[in-house]
């Protein structure tokens, strides 16, 4: 091509499988601009608004009894929901990845179901079951048990919404790892439990951690489903996201964003951990490119 193309050299791509330098610059600029405006600006605004009235006001937000109650409730809910779903995730992925049984793909589909259901509907189904006019409502009232507008309802809704996270992370990982390592351990005399503990767990450790992190972030930040079952009693049944809503609707913006900044930090930490894990253990997390 030499001579004929010489004049174009400044803008011509270095190879036939990429675009010209100008086109690349424009495309990169567009992508960066969009991400900056749409994704990064909202995060900045959270911290900017939270600190709008100064750092000492920011700190006083968390001294409020209702705020502390909301933080405590959020921690309690996550402390129940995350271990339950982790246990389930390990059990389900063990059964699905290591064994053959009829109805396996149905089970896998059902596990993903909560992902495709609107958070509001996820909360609603528990109201239908346990609400004052729900199927078990009268019985629960007669026995003095409260589920909706109380801790159990909030936990149930959170468990439902975060149900698939750990399982979804582990199933493809364990399927791809196969059973050869565990079988090797068995031929060397290990019991089934020893094989699980010394071989399976270390093999899935990073994927498991990743799933737990995602599950936890979602459990602490869930809004729609919890909003439906909580009853919005400040100091009692408000989690952090609900407290954010309450403060915001009371035009108490600085406090609302201060509470929101906690969840934003959690999200950022989760993302950072995910990125680190992918960089260091990418080969054992990514389901496509492993040895």
């Amino acid at each position, binding site marked *: 091509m030499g001579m004929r193309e010489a004049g174009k050299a400044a803008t011509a791509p270095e190879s036939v499988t990429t675009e010209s330098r100008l086109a690349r610059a424009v495309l990169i600029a567009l992508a960066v601009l969009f991400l900056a405006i749409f994704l990064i600006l909202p995060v900045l605004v959270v911290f900017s608004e939270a600190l709008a009235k100064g750092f000492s006001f920011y700190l006083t937000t968390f001294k409020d009894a209702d705020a502390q109650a909301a933080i405590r409730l959020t921690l309690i809910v996550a402390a129940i929901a995350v271990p339950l779903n982790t246990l389930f995730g390990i059990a389900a992925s063990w059964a699905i990845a290591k064994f053959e049984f009829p109805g396996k793909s149905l089970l896998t589909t059902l596990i993903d179901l909560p992902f495709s259901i609107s958070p509001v509907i996820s909360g609603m189904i528990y109201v239908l079951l346990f609400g004052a006019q729900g199927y078990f409502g009268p019985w629960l009232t007669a026995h003095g048990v409260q589920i909706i507008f109380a801790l159990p309802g909030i936990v149930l809704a959170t468990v439902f919404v975060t149900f698939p996270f750990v399982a979804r992370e582990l199933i493809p990982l364990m399927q791809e790892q196969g059973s050869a390592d565990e079988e090797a351990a*068995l031929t060397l005399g290990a*019991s089934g439990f020893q094989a699980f503990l010394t071989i399976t767990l270390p093999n899935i450790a990073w994927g498991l951690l990743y799933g737990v992190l995602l599950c936890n972030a979602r459990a602490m930040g869930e809004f729609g489903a919890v909003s439906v079952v909580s009853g919005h009693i400040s100091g009692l049944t408000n989690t952090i996201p609900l407290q954010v809503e309450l403060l915001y609707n009371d035009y108490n913006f600085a406090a609302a964003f201060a509470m929101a900044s906690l969840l934003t930090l959690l999200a950022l930490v989760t993302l950072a951990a995910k990125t680190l894990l992918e960089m260091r253990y990418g080969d054992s997390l990514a389901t496509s490119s492993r040895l």
Partner: protein
Amino acid sequence: MRIRVVDIAKDFGRTGALRGANLDIRDSELIALLGPSGSGKTTLLRVIAGLEIPKSGKVFFDDHDATAVPVQQRRIGFVFQNYALFKHMTVIDNIAYGLRVLPGAQRPSKTLIRNRAEELLKLVQLSGLGKRYPRQLSGGQQQRVALARALAVEPRVLLLDEPFGALDAKVRKDLRRWLRELHDCTGHTTVFVTHDQDEALELADRVAILNLGKVEQVGKPDEVYDNPGSAFVMSFVGDTSSLPVEFDGTRLLHEGQPLNATFGAVRGGRCRLYVRPRDIVLSVPGADRLPATIVSIHRTAAGRRAQIAVGRAATIIEAEIDIAAEITSGEPIGLSFAKGRVFPE
């Protein structure tokens, strides 16, 4: 240890089903399970190991029925196809694993375990690499670690699934020889699965050929090569061409033209004649020879091969010809066969 496999059936293993497989493995022998993919050879190995539970049939270790013995208690050493080394453990920890998981009372002391592992590392010629992780080793080295790990539990039998499958040609040859030496000095009963006939013939004392979930023939390499018991064995082990023939009770005929011998044919009717390339004799056309035409000639590493169209149907067969022979494509010739075997169609 002697192993007997009796009438094993297995619906669907990972690689292939078994339909009544029988095999008698002698003490201290090195035996190859050879067959195409899906023939059930890996399934059979896994049944012996206790990794698959057969639907019916029995496995005997010496005279004990081992069918129901769990894999942990069979005392077998198993080398997996892709080695299944534990990625999160060092080489030495991989080798020591089988000793560490022993119940408290039987478990040797930490120093003993370490010494034993070091010893094995030396045996597989990897001294000094104990602190490395599996991914830091080459394929051949990983293979030897897998073997050392299997030997650590002092197995009564060594089972290897496609042990050289993932290695390149040169390493494969070295490892084969090394495995043979190792077998000769440790004297373990050793069973390995392969789809490579050269590997089986070169390495094994005896070869068991599997097809469609059954053991078709077991014998020394010479036996299975020179006296194949079935058309399948003949064509799977070594190059083979075949011709449709008919047996009229006394003579073997191809398109009505009698052949120079009957090649063991007994039952009348349509059958096929199987011949090795070097057993095909080329000469000028004549009454006692099959009319044929040379289609093409090509050079191989060792000699020359000719593609020959036989008779009216122009069935293509392959013959080995002398380097010096003056033959050209398109030339009409006469064929006869020095050796061959007839099997029913």
